[in-house]
């Protein structure tokens, strides 16, 4: 595995992106970044601008107005980039599967690497998911 990919796995800077969620998953992501759970020991830092990020933490079922904006934002991330879908809404839209405003699930819009189910998932679950992502990418 190349050195820069190894470095990416040891220092993933996350960017928090909400595509029309109820904000519960956003609150849990915010909790995850507090000193209590200490994600800095994995090298995870919250990136202020999307151009500084390596991992996108996407919450919410993508509604029609967010689709074009999400595509533009995904283009602005410098590759290589990993995408984590947090919550049931980001996975499959959950209870909003028949909603008039959520036509397609998130992975039809951008490629998703890891899904973390839960409504909302606990911060421990989010950390476990990110660690599993790092192991999965580290193994090829």
């Amino acid at each position, binding site marked *: 595995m190349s050195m820069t990919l190894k470095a990416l796995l040891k220092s993933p800077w996350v960017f928090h992106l909400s595509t029309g969620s109820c904000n519960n998953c956003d609150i849990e992501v915010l909790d995850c970044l507090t000193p209590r759970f200490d994600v800095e020991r994995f090298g995870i830092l919250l990136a202020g601008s999307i151009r500084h990020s390596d991992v996108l933490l996407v919450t919410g079922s993508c509604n029609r107005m967010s689709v074009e904006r999400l595509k533009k934002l995904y283009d602005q991330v*410098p590759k290589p980039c990993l995408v984590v879908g947090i919550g049931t809404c980001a996975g499959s839209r959950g209870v909003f599967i028949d909603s008039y405003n959520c036509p397609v699930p998130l992975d039809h819009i951008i490629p998703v690497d890891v899904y973390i189910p839960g409504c909302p998932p606990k911060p421990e679950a989010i950390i476990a998911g990110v660690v599993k992502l790092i192991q999965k990418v580290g193994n090829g």
Partner: protein
Amino acid sequence: MNYFYPVNLIVFGFLLTALLGLISSWVDRKVTAMVQYRVGPPLLQPLVDIVKLLGKETLVPAGASRGAFLLAPLVGLAGVVASSTVLWGNLLRPSTSFAGDWIVILYLLTVPSLGIILGGFASRNPLASLGASREMKLVLSYELPFVLAMLVPVIRSGGSIRLGDILSSQFANGANAGSLSGIIALVVAVLCIQAKLALVPFDAPEAETEIVSGPLIEYSGAALAVYRLAKNMLLFVLPFFLGIMFLGGFRLHGIEILWSVLKFVGVLALITVIRNTNPRVRIDQATRFFWGPVAILGAAAVVLALLGL
């Protein structure tokens, strides 16, 4: 041929400063973690950050002035490397110190901020322009107290603007921080260094929650890596400079090495603790602070030094 100058530039000015800068950045993050009662990042984390950034693609925004955008980080890095070379030259071979190198260091230390300002304005982004203009206001306000504070060691060493003379007068008479004017000037200098490094409480230019990392918002990949490296190296160079001016320099023989390391880490830990225990101030409050109380303190220190205290 005199090989000292190129060796000094590359090995001591760039490589050693980069290494020590990354270690200083780790010390800063570790002390922050300890203050927040958690475990911090591992030792190699700042190096891994830079290596990772070198592997990402560098995106230049459409309509940005490409040359200025990509050269601005190098301008910042050049300023830090040059000032570090002069400081290491003074330490290793005091005969290379020349009259006026105090002035050279002071203006070279403004170049990294100019790099950030240039990069921010070249980004074609309103938030970046806002951050760059805040950085300009901050530079205009802290430069005066910084120069006043740095005048105190010059006065106390008999009016010589040669760093070698300042160091030797401290060896003879005791560190500058031992006197009343010296300690006031040290306080003023530490506050100005917080602003130079754009650390809380004076990080309005790069305020994360407000303007999304300010002037660096459009930077990615290798350009951002150079900026981060320049900032980490500045985190090493500024306490180093402060140690030379106020704390009696760094002697590198035998047991003195431990004392030198403690002096350096002490200043660094002070900067980190100030960073962790203060809220961010607005840019107008910061400029008023530097033009008001801090400048008056600096002037008072100069007057006390002229009176011999």
